[in-house]
């Protein structure tokens, strides 16, 4: 992919991530504070097909843009720490243990670290580490949502494979 194409593709992914992030905020969930983490689909997809730098760019841009739309500084701080932590964990897992681990497991780890990071920010912000009593519930939800995000990313990659194959052929010509 050349530079312009890559940039356009990246911006499209950021746009999608922002829209997913905003929509998922409106979906009611069983337990307060639990989120589906659907925006993670885009980050993980970017990590798999573009690379780790692009994945980080997408997370940072997505967080900034979506906290402009709704929320404020505290919400921004809250989600950027969770997002960065989860992405760094996923990047490390993917870069070093790619052959021994499935995409679903990577995404489960990402979701769990997202929750741990968010709870950490919340605990520091309110100066009360008792908020960690929410951890068990968030762990369970992280495993469930992370697994389904992993499955969706697998499907997404499968369907994008043709597109990238065509792309490469065109570049070769």
């Amino acid at each position, binding site marked *: 992919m050349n530079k312009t194409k890559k940039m356009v593709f990246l911006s499209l992914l950021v746009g999608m991530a922002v829209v997913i992030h905003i929509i998922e905020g409106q979906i009611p969930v069983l337990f307060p504070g639990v989120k589906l983490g659907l925006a993670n689909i885009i980050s993980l997809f970017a990590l798999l097909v573009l690379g780790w730098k692009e994945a980080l760019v997408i997370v940072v841009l997505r967080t900034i843009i979506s906290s402009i739309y709704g929320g*404020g500084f505290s919400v921004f701080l809250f989600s950027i720490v969770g997002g960065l932590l989860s992405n760094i964990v996923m990047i490390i897992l993917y870069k070093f243990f790619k052959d021994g681990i499935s995409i679903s*497991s990577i995404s489960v780890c990402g979701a769990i670290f997202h929750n741990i990071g968010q709870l950490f920010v919340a605990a520091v912000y309110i100066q009360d580490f008792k908020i960690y009593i929410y951890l068990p519930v968030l762990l369970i939800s992280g495993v469930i949502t992370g697994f389904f995000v992993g499955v969706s990313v697998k499907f997404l990659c499968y369907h994008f494979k043709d597109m990238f194959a065509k792309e490469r052929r065109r570049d070769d010509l």
Partner: protein
Amino acid sequence: MKKGDKIVLMTVLALLVVSFLSVIIYRISYKGKALNAKIIQNQKVLVEVDLEKIDEPKEWMVKGEEGHYNIIRVEKGRIRFIEANCPDLVCVHTGWLSQPGDIAVCMPHNVLVKIEGEKEELDEISY
């Protein structure tokens, strides 16, 4: 299932067990103590009530900057956020708090309600 998946699974299970156990221990250590609720805004305690001594339901409005508000309702033995104008409404959805150690937080407005087992410090001085 690959090898890495098994390691992830084991780690997650261990983490789950540890966190569940610590929550259970935490609950047990608070059991049977008085229900003292605190409403805290920006790390400052605004209101402190003994939930068992509340006979009539009561409501407080906690006002913050830029028109932020949270309304907190107290009934006998329980307390909750009933209304707020924060974007995510996590505090309201947390529902009733009725056990020592329960906590509800409104992150955007930095308001939290928690139930503690006993009044800190003062009781010890009065001995």
